């Protein structure tokens, strides 16, 4: 074992650095899905579309503003503002005119409706942005690279990958934890998550909480997309790729668990990057192996609480 670490320790170090940025991005998308799932109890397949539209919108707005002479430093705040804009517009629209009508429906109906919405939004993306890859990498290129020593060699990493993505994830995690535990609105959301009936009976307006939570979840999905846009080329289908992994994080973390989502994202991000170095064939399945192993031991998820069934 010690010999293996001596041979591969440096590679493992690189894998950890790669895993951090990957985990950051996974967390940003999955935590929004987890929040929506925890409060609304709806498996929102269209969360992937919000991610994709956030990415497209951020790239388009970035390209447009760059054309107007926007200074490079403003490109990162532009990502955040684009995501907020997408969430603030689409979130209330979807919740008010679609989801509100199906809260009382069976889960399978809810799943089908959000899937249909996902398909519709996929076509909307093609209508608006076409099918050719779109990219806007100013936020990544302006920050440059940093050379990480690797034995006698060095490995260039982008500062965006190494610092910005994990940084946003940490800020989101801490901000969310503070918001949910230290503010009145956050506590109301937690109350509805924990026991919707009791919370409503005590006078909490569940409809408002649902609207607020869904809008916030939509913003987080769009933020994940916006932050991925400087590194990835945007093409039709990016939303579908993201949503599957996000579901795995939510299932593994446990219903509505923010810290659980962070830890699970870290495990999955690290797991995937370690696999790329040592067993690339397993890269795709590592997150799902982690999910299966966790659910075998804790069916309610890593941080989930066993729910009692009311009769």
């Amino acid at each position, binding site marked *: 074992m010690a010999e293996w670490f001596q041979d591969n320790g440096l*590679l493992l170090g*690189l*894998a950890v*650095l*790669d*895993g951090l*940025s*990957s985990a950051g*991005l996974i967390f940003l998308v999955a935590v929004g899905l987890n929040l929506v799932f925890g409060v609304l109890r709806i498996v929102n397949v269209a969360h992937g579309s919000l991610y994709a539209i956030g990415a497209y919108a951020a790239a388009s707005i970035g390209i447009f503003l760059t054309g107007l002479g926007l200074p490079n430093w403003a490109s990162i705040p532009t990502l955040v503002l684009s995501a907020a804009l997408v969430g603030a517009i689409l979130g209330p629209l979807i919740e008010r005119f679609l989801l509100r009508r199906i809260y009382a429906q069976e889960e399978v109906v809810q799943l089908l409706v959000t899937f249909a919405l996902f398909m519709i939004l*996929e*076509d909307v993306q*093609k209508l608006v942005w*076409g*099918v*050719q*890859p*779109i*990219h806007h*990498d100013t936020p*990544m*290129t302006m920050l440059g*690279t940093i050379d990480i020593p*690797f034995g006698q*060699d060095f*490995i*260039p*990493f*982008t500062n965006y*990958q190494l610092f910005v993505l994990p940084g946003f994830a940490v800020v989101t995690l801490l901000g969310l934890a503070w918001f949910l535990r230290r503010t009145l609105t956050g506590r109301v959301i937690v109350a509805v998550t924990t026991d919707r009936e009791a919370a409503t009976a005590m006078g909490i307006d569940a409809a408002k909480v649902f609207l607020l939570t869904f809008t916030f979840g939509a913003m987080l999905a769009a933020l994940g997309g916006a932050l*991925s846009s400087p*590194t*990835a*080329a*945007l*093409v*039709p*289908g*990016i939303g*579908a*790729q*993201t949503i599957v992994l996000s579901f795995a994080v939510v299932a593994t973390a446990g219903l509505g668990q923010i810290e659980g989502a962070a830890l699970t994202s870290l495990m999955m991000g690290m797991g*995937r*990057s370690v696999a*790329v*170095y040592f067993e*690339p*064939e397993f*890269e*795709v399945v590592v997150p799902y192996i982690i999910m299966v192993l966790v659910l075998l031991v804790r069916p309610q998820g890593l941080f989930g609480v066993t729910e009692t069934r009311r009769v």
Partner: protein
Amino acid sequence: MTATLSRREALVAGFGGVLLPATLSAQPAQKPAELKIGVTTFLSGPASVFGVPSRKACEMLVDQINAAGGIAGVPVRATFVDEAPGTDHLVGEMRRLVQSEGVNVLLQSISSGSCLACTPLSRELNKVMLLWDCGTQRIFEENRYEYAFRTQGYGTPEVLAPLLYLLKHKPDFRTVAVINQDYAWGRDSWELWKAGMDALKPGVRVVAEMFPRFGSTDFSTEITRLLALRPDVILSTSWGGELVTLIRQATERRLFERSTFVLPVAEASLPTLGRTMPEGHIIGTRGDHWNNHPAPANPELFRSFVNAYRQRNNEYPIYPCHHMAQAMWALKAGVEKAVAAKNGGWPSDAELAHAFRGLTFPTPTSTITLREDGQGLEDQIVGLSTFNADFGFSVPKDMMLYKGETVSAPVGQKSTDWLKTLKPDFVASAGRSI
């Protein structure tokens, strides 16, 4: 009441079922009011980066052909079907196109999986099927089809030509890594490359084989590993958004300064990449139809196709547009040949299929011959990437042309078996500079 069937009736029914469609297809055919073509391509999902431009090219050519009086006096009408929902859906749609829509000729598909699933339908439906873009070598190496023809090259020449170019221009490389998409093309193209490389330059060490999930949007980890390994050559047959992402992330992290990239399918991504594509790496286009082709066979036709497409769509045509055009030109040449063979009469499906076998049709850049097994022989042009301000993106320089018949496996031989028989001196004789 139970219906019973005598042995004789069963035999008659069986023979009827087998022979009747073929007999009907050989009957004298009436000149149709329209030549209906059913076109399968990706209209959604990641591969729509190829499918949508190909549809635009098809629509433009149909308009042009009809404006000029149609094919043999018959106007053409195209119906498009999306490949994205999968092969089961596509098989059903193809049957519907022929049996309900009365389609005369089928043009299929981009995905190798689609082609493998749907080409056998050409037998069942007895309809001419032109494979316009898919690259798998297995179609005509594992089966014989009377009604199916591929109007372009395929995986073997498309991978072998860049390999030959590499061996000619950078013969001293000792290590190779591959990063391909994890699906049929990614795996098959690596198998073809490996077989050719082991035969033409034995002893090259493969330091990494990576097949990231199809549709990946981040290659940071793979790039870090490649930076650490420092292979002399990195092969990637990836395409679309994934290739754009890989190149951008690798450029930003200076991987292109450490290794020579070989990108056989780069052409379609170059307009998107603009100035980002680094200089001096090996790029291919799955054929010979580069926008800066220095000596096309018919320069006027080449310019008119490119300019008409640009005017209509405000973008340069990429290789799937050229492949679609090849299928349309083959269709025109095949139908006209069959009509001429009947002294102006309209051919049956069997007669039309007969006309396609051995057909040589002109393209703006060269000619393509559909040989006896149905496979088209398309020339390949490979070069080194260089930014061209006139285009606003990279195009190849120091180009070499490889004739289709030189870099394709001979009829009756499997590609991997044939590649293993190649000798190192093949590198010097295989291509010519243009």
